[in-house]
């Protein structure tokens, strides 16, 4: 491996890590969404600095071409990230539904309150109690 290739690998890995940390720093990326990207960035940095680790691990796992291990791990990470996004999306949808229901309940309650002719005594009980997500 030429020194240029070696340096290129390290620079690319460091750039990726800087991008991830900068996004976290600005609050654009939440910690829990950054975990797998961060792990990927760290792994590529390790492999870029110590290429022997890659050949050694590939040999230990019985993989003939070490690059295939890189592809395997990369695809695995992408798989995990998209799986996490799917799960997160489902959670967000559930929360959104809960909020929409809550908004509808409040609107209904306001209408009921507006219909009342005389000034009321004592606050009515919160009708959204026992509300389930």
């Amino acid at each position, binding site marked *: 491996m030429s020194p240029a290739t070696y340096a290129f690998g390290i620079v690319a890995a460091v750039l990726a890590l800087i991008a991830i*940390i900068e996004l976290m720093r600005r609050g654009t990326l939440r910690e829990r969404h950054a975990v797998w990207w961060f792990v990927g960035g760290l792994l590529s940095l390790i492999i870029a600095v110590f290429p022997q680790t890659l050949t050694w691990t590939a040999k230990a796992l019985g993989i003939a071409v070490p690059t295939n291990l890189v592809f395997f791990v990369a695809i695995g990470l992408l798989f995990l990230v998209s799986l996490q996004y799917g799960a997160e999306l489902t959670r967000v949808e559930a929360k959104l539904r*809960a909020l929409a229901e809550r908004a509808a309940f409040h609107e209904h309650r306001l209408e009921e309150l507006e219909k009342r002719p005389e000034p009321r005594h004592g606050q009515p009980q919160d009708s959204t109690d026992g509300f389930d997500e």
Partner: protein
Amino acid sequence: MRPVDHSVLVVIPALNEEESVADVVRDVRLGIPSARCLVVDDGSSDRTGERARAAGASVLTLPYNLGVGGAMRAGFRFARSNGFSIVVQVDADGQHDPAAILQLIEGLSSADLMIGARFAGVGDYGVRGPRRWAMRALAALMSNVARTRLTDVTSGFKAAGPRAVALFADNFPAEYLGDTIEALVIAARAGLTIRQLPVAMRKRQAGTPSHHPIKAAAYLTRACAAFALAMIRPRARLETRS
């Protein structure tokens, strides 16, 4: 116009604490009758909200669980929009002694943020082994940032003065460990004074802290990551609204 002693808001974030929340509310109202007691029901599936309301607290019901950070953020925003200048955070599990609230508030005359510290010599708080070391290491780090000696940075028993309330209403973090570590870092870096007050803890009414070494290590790692991230984040500014 609000009388001065009416401007204390006691915020109690509660998740499924129907057993203890009513007692905590009652103790708080006895301990400091002039304060308003706000229970933030953090998506409980039991009767926490109902019990708290029956005990005389105002209840803010969150539509789903937001975590302690999210609940406290709601509490600080409530305080700002309703003109409370002091916010005291008390856990709903009954481990904090409401009698110490007044002492915390008195401490606010010389500080912006008072922490009720569990390890500072009063009472016995049963955390031992790796988790305790993890908490000590964190305390050492935080003491450095806050430029004062802190021994318990993960305490959920805190009082925030007017400057801290103004800061937290805009910047309270809702991340994991945000309500403890990151909140303190934000306050310290914004130039607020942080002091601690040794307080005795009562027995937790339910649940025991874990002492597993691997869990403690994971906790310390996450806490240090949260701390490091909080340190490199852009500094929060204290807006002075007149």
